[in-house]
């Protein structure tokens, strides 16, 4: 299987091939495929939402707290906004924040983590110290700290402050992961070999380490993106976000704040919760799928006579005893 992957990639040196082949590998895994389809659907939803949202999502122009109807597919909020328009229009910023935090946070984690894992002892100690400081200080505190610092700038900068806060509070976990795998890879013979033949540190990092940890990078990206999306909600919740923006985070914030779940306004609280869950779920599926692709021993193959095996082999959970 692996052999074939490599060969397929080698045959297709064109740019198109470079994009399509990894995609084929991705789609060969059931979980990754499901996650991918969900994510693509969400992205389409978000793009369409920018152009076709039925009403202005921020205007308070309708009857308040109305249940779903033909005119208002998901009803209206207690302030008289159209919930569906909010959901539709708010998809893009939600996804955008998630991805931005995922990409930028992962980049920072990689840079910091790998340089800590593959630098001289002294640099390693210093950087590890910094990572630990960020890990020890509770995220809530960091968000409050940086949040209040950025608060004054909010209006003009749009989502930038929120993204920055989430990156600052979200990179350290990944950095610690990258540091520890880099440390273990750096001791492997194939890296020592490169040191012996005279490769520079940078060359080893870019040519070998990044490739070796690529599956972890991808999985870290989804993890951080997940943090970004969830973070959008609790940044609002801690009162350091901009509550006038429309996204699934602020929607949830207002819904919960107005006790929509107590007043029976399920149409206000369920849609954003549902959408966030779907997004999380697609991230998780992609993450698991990637793990399986990177780690073939987790894979299961299709078998025509699996039942037959079961019969002969008997119980599958007896451990090999010595």
């Amino acid at each position, binding site marked *: 299987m692996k052999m074939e992957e490599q060969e397929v990639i080698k045959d297709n040196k064109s740019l198109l091939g470079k994009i399509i082949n990894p995609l084929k590998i991705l789609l060969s895994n059931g979980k990754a495929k499901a996650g991918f389809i969900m994510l693509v659907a969400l992205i389409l939803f978000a793009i369409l939402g920018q152009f076709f949202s039925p009403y202005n999502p921020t205007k308070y122009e309708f009857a308040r707290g109305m249940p779903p109807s033909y005119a208002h597919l998901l009803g209206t909020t207690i302030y008289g906004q159209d919930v569906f328009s909010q959901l539709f229009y708010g998809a893009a910023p939600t996804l955008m924040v998630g991805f931005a935090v995922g990409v930028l946070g992962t980049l920072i984690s990689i840079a910091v983590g790998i340089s800590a894992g593959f630098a001289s002892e002294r640099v390693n100690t210093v950087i590890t110290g910094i990572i630990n400081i960020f890990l020890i200080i509770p995220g809530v505190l960091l968000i409050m700290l940086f949040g209040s610092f950025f608060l004054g700038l909010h209006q003009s900068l749009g989502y930038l402050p929120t993204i920055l806060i989430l990156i600052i509070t979200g990179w350290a976990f990944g950095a610690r992961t990258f540091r520890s795998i880099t440390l273990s890879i750096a001791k492997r013979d194939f890296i020592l070999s490169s040191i012996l033949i005279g490769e520079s540190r940078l060359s080893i990092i870019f040519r070998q380490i990044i490739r070796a940890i690529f599956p972890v990078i991808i999985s870290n990206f989804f993890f951080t993106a997940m943090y970004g999306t969830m973070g959008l909600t609790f940044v609002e919740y801690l009162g350091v976000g901009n509550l006038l923006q429309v996204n699934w985070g602020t929607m949830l914030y207002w819904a919960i704040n107005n006790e929509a779940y107590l007043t029976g306004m399920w149409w206000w609280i369920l849609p954003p919760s549902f959408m966030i869950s779907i997004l999380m779920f697609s991230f998780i599926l992609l993450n698991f799928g990637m793990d399986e692709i990177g780690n073939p021993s987790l894979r299961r193959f299709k*078998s025509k006579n699996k039942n037959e095996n079961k019969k002969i*082999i008997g119980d599958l959970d007896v451990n090999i005893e010595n």
Partner: protein
Amino acid sequence: MEVNHINAGYESENGYISVLKDVSLTVNRDIILGIAGESGSGKSTLAAVLYNSFRYPGTIRSGEVIFDGKNLLKMKPNELRKLRGTEISFIPQAAMNALNPVKKIRLQFYDMMIAHNIKENDFDSKISSSLELVRLQENVLDNFPHELSGGMRQRVVIAMSLLLSPKFIILDEPTTGLDVMVEHDILLDIKKIQRTLGLTIVFISHDLPILFGISDAIVMMYGGEIVESGDYEDLLRNPAHPYTYQLLKSIPLIGTKIDSSMIMKGIAIDFNHIPHGCYFHPRCNFAVPKCSDIHPELKQTDGKTHLYRCNRYPEWSRNAKLEAIGT
């Protein structure tokens, strides 16, 4: 133990890959049976099948393993569980690296006895007698696996397998990765334990020198088939299959100088591309054209117990002897 017509392999993306092909063998009581072959010849697969611990993606297509009159492969889980450890035990390849790293050795011994409902009063006596067999001091019990050397860990694993006094033990590459001194000591101990307790041992290794040194009978595997089997001495003095002959010749020995005729050409078989005819023909020094067409059956030599699978025996062996005299 009697093994009949085992066919087993692995499920893969490209479908089922057949590894063991119609493997039948008999393990007599009170001997060490050596199973030899290069890595990837199907030895570990066979070991797992013998213990019925072959798991997905591994698949057993057909065959039976008769142990004490019963088919192991058809046993119920709880029957198997009762048998394992007490009648038959298995030390898989690299088991010494598979000890639980966060548990002291003592607890790992206890766990095993608890699993078999041994009375608590017997714990210590059982442990100390099995440690004595492998010449370990009792203080290893209070160590974690990583605090022990490779040789000691291997001894611990052997002691565990002896704990419930089974009569039949399967050892897969028990000394691979250890250095020659430690290996030698452990082999001596295995032999001694086998002789004094009257055990039956299936000893699997790719390392011909030690395998021939320790076994009473030997089975040579190539490409998932048995290509030769018999008494160790017959195989050593009069190999009937060129594979055995060429392997024995390629063994580095003290006091000889290197010689390119010792090189075994080609590489071990690839189960995705099995050659036609005799599986060994691409690497055989004695192959003739018919070898790439005719797949040889397992035949008997004059001695009743010596089996081989070659189209050209004893012809090739005479040629080899002539050559040896010529040079």
